[in-house]
């Protein structure tokens, strides 16, 4: 944010406070001065997984089983853990993550959210070891009426460089310094201290192998 006080029209009372002018016979020393200054913008952000009581998966309609959050999911932290899910079905994970932003940037900010990698399979390791994140894991703003079939937007796999497999975030220095425009999940037009909650949807195509899958979703906030 850059502010320029283009014409500080207020009168600068040089004469009144300056002895050298006090007794001078010159005309009144009054006028305008231009002062340029800038306030450096600051942006701070926090992300809280499983941010509200009642978090966890629903859905799997037709699979014959009822999903339940895995052991790694704890209120206010941990992992967005869908637990056991059935290939070929759709799930909604309520209250998956809450993003909070504090900024003095009067132009607002953009929050991006994207996967550090594709879905990494383990236990057992499938072949290939990864499955596309795109069109498998989706996000939508939390709402009481959300279902596993609510309109949602797919997460993208980043073009940046995942740090420590994504556990350390994503380095965007080699890709223009910011995430993909398509990965924007929230655009806010002004400064403030604001929060937004997100649900996740899992839509498992029949092609996904049976395995345990993991991915890190990285949120990046950039001031406008």
């Amino acid at each position: 944010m850059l502010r320029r006080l283009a014409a500080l029209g207020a009168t600068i009372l040089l004469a009144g406070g300056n002895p050298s002018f006090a007794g001078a016979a010159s005309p009144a020393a009054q006028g305008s001065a231009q002062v340029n200054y800038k306030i450096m913008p600051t942006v701070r952000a926090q992300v809280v997984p499983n941010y509200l009581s009642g978090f966890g998966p629903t859905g799997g309609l037709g699979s014959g089983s009822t999903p339940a959050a895995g052991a790694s999911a704890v209120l206010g932290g941990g992992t967005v853990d869908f637990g056991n899910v059935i290939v070929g079905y759709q799930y909604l994970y309520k209250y998956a993550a809450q993003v909070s932003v504090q900024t003095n940037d009067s132009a607002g900010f953009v929050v991006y959210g994207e996967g550090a990698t594709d879905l990494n399979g383990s236990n057992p390791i499938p072949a290939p070891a990864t499955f596309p994140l795109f069109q498998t894991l989706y996000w939508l703003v939390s709402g009481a009426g959300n279902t596993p079939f609510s309109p949602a937007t797919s997460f993208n796999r980043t073009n940046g460089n995942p740090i420590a497999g994504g556990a350390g975030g994503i380095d965007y220095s080699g890709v223009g310094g910011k995430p993909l425009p398509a990965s924007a999940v929230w655009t806010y037009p002004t400064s403030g201290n604001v929060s937004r909650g997100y649900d996740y949807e899992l839509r498992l195509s029949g092609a996904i192998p049976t395995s345990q899958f993991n991915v890190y979703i990285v949120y990046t906030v950039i001031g406008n």
Partner: protein
Amino acid sequence: MRRTNIFALLALAVLAALAVVSQADALQAQKAYKEMVVTIIVTPSPAPVGFLRPAAPAAAPAAAVAQFARLVADPFAGPAQIASSPSAWDVAPGVTVAQASAQPPPVPVQFVAKPDPNAAFIHIVPHTPTLYAPYGITTFTCVFEVYTFYTNTYNLTDWGYGTSKTSGSGSGTFPIENYSMVSYLSWAVPDFSPTFRPYNNAGPPGETTWSGAKGQAQQHCVDLTLNVPNSQPAGTYTATVQYNLYVTLP
């Protein structure tokens, strides 16, 4: 332990093992079903628009116009300017100022994908789960395929899910809509007929997609056409269709 007890226990163990192994060999009920979710992104262009010529703006007073022009020409004009920054820019044009950013710790996500016990009888192979649709009618080829098989005769039926005639949200929004409105999404199985039919949105019993003979495995493409009316705002929508496999139990 007496020998008869041992035999009884062995028999129970064999029965339990058979029950587990044979679970995938037959459906446990007359019906198995799958939901197919298609994401539809209605693109804003070429949205039909009307043009209304705006009214001419009120003319500004001549004095105000002149004063404004003077200010633009020289913002610091005045009888006694004492000090002024030599540059009108605090950052020269073309110089990029670093944007403030923050990246909190990432959110770990995990799940354990388990096999579908009914996949041997019905499953869906998605090809284009997201459709980008302009206004008007657009045809999408082989959006997904449906596979069916059973050891006896069967029927595959479908209906739109989440309408006032089914469970789910019941909202019946675009494109499936609520009965008695006609769905904006239509389907065809070109292996059988090129004719598109609007998706049934009246709930069960739905409409027959195809039938199968005893032991017949078949997999067919489903083409879709989507009609986006001019009144539909651009945005992201979903269409959820339930495919039901009804089998004749032996």
